């Protein structure tokens, strides 16, 4: 036996500490939860992931790779997405939501500047997939399939790829070079593209189905719907889609002095603002009020800033023409009655309130429909393609997504559908059932301990001043400051995922939170944890929760 110093009966260095873990009835666990931004993102982006990468590593390249795991078009989404993620952001209840949309744009722009390339997950597979339409849905589906090694071929009806992003969204919102660069990056994955081929007209649908293992239909809603008013065959009456397509393909459109846009959706806003930039006085005619307008709020605000006139409660009755040319529209005032089936107030005309609005051009932005020429699938409400939960249509092996399925939706919703369809197609080809992991519960601000967060001003992107906007189609929001975006990313609460604040580590009265030597993350030493719950209570992002002892 070792000789001990005088007075000691026991070598204290060899004593095993008393394990207090046996006192515990509740035990702490680390549970990663879904933040509301990820939950609300129609494209399924890992928003918390890319913001935390920016904030912690200050690494735009890594953030770009996080973002492009799900979204092939970050620079585009960062410009045109109505960002439902920010509406859900838990910071909303604290000060103001994180400017996720601007951060996404900065990350996307960085990717374009540095020519970052997508990584292939599987090098090569022999199966072939045809994608009809190169809009966001088709691109996203092709992107995800190509990443997984499939031979993907896109058929595009128009001269250039991009769908509504090319021909629908005006270039002050989405400059053409951004679209071009982002697409070029996607083609590098080995996707074949054939333009000016309209499936169903130039090439029969059946042939595609026979020669490919699967087909994805992402044809969008390219036909403008008209409303039933007399005089719409006059010259200078356009449908919204048609008008935007003409302007975006660089055609000279003479709109004259006065333009009347009929409708209250996003297409109507785009048409109005484009016509304004072509030098016209624009009024938007809508039969309900601003509240009922389906357009994105920011778009309406910006249109108002640009002095677009809004005439609410006004319904066109007739387009007045003189010698085959529009001179104005006859309109009637409406009043709103009890809501109709769509939940919006039902407009009813007021007798004797007719008036004439002068117009050199009338744009009917009153809805869009799918152009089914040569594509025969089952339809929902006789309008949109009907698809099951795996996005498969009535034809076996033919999948569909985007506006053609959803009705009129956003770019990000179409991207999300493309992603889902790609995974469904992969499972279809592999003969498996689509494996969808259930995501953990969403975390809301009432669950957070916001004491540890600091109030900080939200990043505000600066639009061009109004007098500089209307003379050209240059982008409304100039390039963003990358440094400022990193500051903004630091505002992210990191809801439901540890951000290494160290509260559990410092507050545990029993020192039972340790830094794992393997992973470097905080872990619980359950030999000593008494289960008091202090760590869970003081965890700012609720990554730690107490559960019953096993």
């Amino acid at each position, binding site marked *: 036996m070792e000789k001990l110093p005088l007075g000691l009966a026991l070598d204290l260095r060899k004593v095993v500490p008393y394990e207090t873990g046996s006192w515990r009835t509740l035990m702490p666990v680390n549970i990663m939860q879904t933040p509301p931004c990820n939950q609300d993102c129609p494209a399924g982006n890992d928003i918390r992931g890319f913001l935390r990468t920016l904030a912690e590593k200050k690494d735009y390249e890594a953030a770009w790779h996080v973002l492009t795991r799900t979204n092939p078009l970050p620079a585009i989404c960062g410009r045109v997405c109505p960002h439902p993620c920010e509406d859900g952001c838990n910071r909303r209840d604290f000060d103001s939501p994180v400017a996720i949309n601007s951060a996404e744009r900065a990350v996307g722009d960085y990717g374009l500047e540095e020519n970052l390339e997508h990584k292939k997950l599987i090098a090569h597979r022999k199966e072939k997939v045809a994608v009809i339409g190169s809009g966001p849905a088709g691109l996203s589906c092709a992107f995800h399939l190509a990443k997984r090694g499939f031979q993907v071929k896109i058929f595009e009806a128009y001269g250039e790829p991009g769908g509504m992003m090319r021909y629908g969204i005006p270039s002050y919102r989405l400059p053409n070079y951004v679209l071009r660069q982002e697409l070029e990056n996607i083609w590098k994955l080995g996707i074949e593209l054939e333009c000016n081929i309209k499936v169903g007209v130039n090439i029969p649908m059946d042939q595609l189905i026979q020669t490919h293992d699967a087909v994805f239909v992402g044809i969008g809603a390219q036909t403008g719907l008209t409303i039933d008013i007399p005089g719409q065959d006059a010259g200078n009456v356009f449908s919204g889609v048609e008008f935007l397509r003409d302007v975006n393909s660089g055609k000279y459109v003479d709109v004259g002095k006065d333009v009347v846009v009929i409708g209250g959706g996003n297409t109507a806003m785009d048409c109005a603002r484009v016509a304004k930039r072509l030098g016209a006085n624009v009024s938007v005619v809508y039969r309900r009020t601003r509240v009922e307008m389906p357009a994105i709020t920011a778009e309406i605000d910006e249109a108002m800033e640009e002095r677009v006139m809004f005439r609410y409660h006004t319904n066109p009755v007739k387009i007045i023409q003189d010698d085959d040319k529009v001179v104005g529209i006859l309109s009637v005032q409406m009043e709103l009655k009890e809501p109709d089936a769509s939940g919006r107030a039902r407009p009813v005309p007021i007798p004797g309130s007719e008036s004439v609005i002068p117009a050199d051009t009338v744009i009917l932005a009153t809805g869009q429909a799918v152009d089914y020429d040569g594509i025969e699938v089952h339809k929902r409400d006789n309008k949109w393609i009907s698809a099951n939960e795996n996005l498969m249509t009535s034809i076996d092996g033919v999948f569909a997504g985007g506006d053609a399925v959803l009705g009129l939706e956003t770019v990000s919703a179409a991207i999300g559908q493309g992603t889902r369809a790609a995974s469904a197609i992969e499972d279809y080809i592999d003969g498996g059932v689509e494996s969808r992991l259930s995501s953990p519960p969403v975390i809301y601000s009432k669950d957070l301990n916001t004491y540890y967060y600091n109030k900080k001003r939200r990043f505000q992107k600066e639009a061009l001043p109004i007098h500089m906007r209307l003379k050209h189609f240059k982008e409304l929001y100039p390039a963003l400051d990358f440094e400022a975006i990193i500051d903004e990313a630091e505002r992210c609460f990191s809801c439901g995922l540890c951000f290494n604040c160290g509260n559990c580590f410092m507050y545990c009265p029993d020192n039972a939170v340790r830094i794992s030597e393997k992973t470097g993350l905080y872990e619980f030493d359950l030999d000593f944890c*008494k289960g008091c719950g*202090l760590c869970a209570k003081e965890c700012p992002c609720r990554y730690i929760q107490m559960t019953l002892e096993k």
Partner: protein
Amino acid sequence: MREQSKYLEGVDKKDLFASGHRACGGCGQALAARLVADAAGENTIACVATGCLEVFSGPYPDPSWRIPFLHSLFENASAVASGVDAAYKALKKGPVNIIAQGGDGSTADIGFQSISGMFERGHNVLYVCYDNEAYMNTGVQRSSFTPYGARTSTTPTGNTTRKKNMPMLAADHGIPYVATATVDDFRDLQLKIRKALTIEGPKYIHILAPCPLGWGHHGELTVEICRLAKDTGLFPVYEIIDGKVTNVRKIPVKVPVEEYLKPQGRFKHLFKKGVPTKEVDVIQEIANQNIERFNL
């Protein structure tokens, strides 16, 4: 190994007060003792008076202390610390950090004379008082730190006297450094310990350490209760350097005392079916006086 979290810069975690002690879950004193020991570092001698801290951290053969630890009687921790200081001087050894530690009973009641003596003789000792506002070790009896209205086993209908203002009493001995702190702000607490140890002469630091058992709240609320004590004004956090009150922690958003009283079982009798009685107004008045006095 993960790099040090940027949120923990300027904070010490050395585990000099190790796991395996017998404190209740969520014990504020265990947390405070670890924060103090980690801030003081290895070159420290802890002289601890009888009380919860000594009982739960010192049983042979597996004490939690990883620094030299000297257990004394209830009343003489500061006298023992004075002796350690004198011994080091006589042996011409050191320098060493000597920290005398005790609960509120041994500080304000039983050990007051020895603390007073230590301050007056000017020993180079830091005295840390873990204030949990009653004799928790022996079964929650009233001490002179028990606040107005609190129920203890000896004041079952609520304490009728006000809490002794020990930091001020210590400051009036003319000692160079007095500070108050709470366990929720570990950065501030460790800063004060480190600052005190750089000063020659007797120092006094008063730490509010909630006792889940004696105060009748959940263990998980220890930090929250401290925060509320500060934000209601019931526990002002400040430093007294050479007799002048400085570095007062301003309350960001003032909180009514009910918020602090309600989660605690010892104040439960102050609410009749959730409606506050007139004692709550007295406590609010105490908080208001603190706010006015220290300009919180």
